[in-house]
């Protein structure tokens, strides 16, 4: 007896959702032996494959099965993406540069050279008084280069190189210490004697 084509059964066979191997075998036998079933199978398979290979919107789960309503995805109250904008980035970079300079200057300002009562006989050979800063803390002398030039420092005939914005700490012996600072042109910019 000719069995009427069951479209849904063929679709279930194609998607592999038949609940038993026997049922799947039965459908396959019908497709392989009956021209109408085979013809329907090819149509349905082509149709199903076309949909499978066409990219449609992925159906949200809550629409597919509203019973399992997932929590509504909350949007963050603060969006950090604006920080990635170039204008903002440039502004932040400028602010950082300012902060660095301010902090450096603050460090330089810590050298209250001219008010230190332990430093005596200070002789400045340069008008640029803010190139070198000295600070004496008990027997430790700290020298800071606040210029962009590389300085040579001679302390009691010992030579030191002081790069730009660099500092140097030297322990002083009791007695008189002479400090001579020269710039990269070998010009003496400071010649100081300290009595410790």
């Amino acid at each position, binding site marked *: 007896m000719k069995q009427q084509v069951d*479209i*849904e*059964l063929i*679709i*279930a*066979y*194609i*998607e592999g*959702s*038949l609940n038993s191997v026997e049922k799947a075998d039965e459908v*396959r036998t019908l*497709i*392989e*032996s009956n*021209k109408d079933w*085979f*013809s*329907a*199978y*090819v*149509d*349905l*398979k*082509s*149709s*199903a*494959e*076309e*949909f499978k290979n*066409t*990219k*449609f*919107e992925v*159906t949200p789960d809550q*629409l*597919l*099965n*509203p*019973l399992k309503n997932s929590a509504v995805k909350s949007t963050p109250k603060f969006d950090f993406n604006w920080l990635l904008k170039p204008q903002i980035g440039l502004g932040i970079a400028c602010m950082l540069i300012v902060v660095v300079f301010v902090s450096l200057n603050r460090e330089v300002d810590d050298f209250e050279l001219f008010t230190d009562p332990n430093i005596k006989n200070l002789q400045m050979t340069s008008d640029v008084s803010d190139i070198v800063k000295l600070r004496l803390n008990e027997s430790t002398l700290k020298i800071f280069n606040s210029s962009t030039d590389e300085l040579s420092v001679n302390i009691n005939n010992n030579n030191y190189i002081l790069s730009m914005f660099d500092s140097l700490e030297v322990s002083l012996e009791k007695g008189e210490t002479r400090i001579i600072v020269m710039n990269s042109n070998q010009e003496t910019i400071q010649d100081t004697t300290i009595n410790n």
Partner: protein
Amino acid sequence: MFKDDREFASLLCNQDKHAKRAFQEIYTDELYFIASKMVNVGIDEDSWDYRTKKGYNIKVSDDVSDTYLWLLHQVELKSCLYKGLAEFKNYILTVLNGSFIKKDWLKWKTGITGYIPKHIQEKGDDYIEIYKLMRQKKDDETIMQIRKMEYSDLVDYKYDIHRSLAKHGQLDLIKDYTVTSLSVTNEDGEILYEPKDENLSVEETDDLSLSMNKIDEIIQSFSKSDQFIAIAYWGKNLSAGDLFTFLNKDTPSILKKSNIASADDVYKFVNRFIDNFHNEISSDTNPITKKGARTIIENYYLIKK
């Protein structure tokens, strides 16, 4: 809201408003895709663009919009038949996109609008008018009289219309006529026209007289697996690759019986099938080349589609 697929289908069947709205929310893209495919058949016309959720455009004409609504109605009908064997999504979309529903669509389109297929419209006014007269079942004499044309011209027009309808799977639109591979006959089997078909490479056209029954008889003599593969290849227009992939997964024994172990073997099968058919059909009285045999097979499955 919906417990499972069966309840969703049941509500759709009962025209539940919430279920219908939910279906449209989920499957609008797919419905427009099917509607657009049914109507346009690759032909441009006045339309507006529907942008899918995924971001590509579908051309929506009035015909597509009407068809979209018709498909929604079909969703209600087909949902009533759902038994819960397959996933509802696969069931409904595969059915709506399948060729079964196309005939229903043609009937509906013809019934309410005096539908003229786009591929006929594109051919020009003469074709449209002759097609309409054929739809009205006017005989050739009447058509010739109304259109003031020679019989030979009418035959050419009719032949083109038949070929175009057959190519687009719409021969049902002119039910009173059947088309054999080489001739047009009416319901009584009377040959109305034996077309000149250069592709057939028929040496002596005048002597050619083939009936559908003869072609049927030859093809029925082939093995069942060969017949099935021919249906898939010529009748359903599957590519060799798709044919092999589909059948290899779901019905491998058909391929095995026809000695097909790869997509390339499908081409070997095609040549073998044509050779066998050619051997049977060609004779001294009906000398047909292999190229002609191939065209006959192609047309046979086009009509049988």
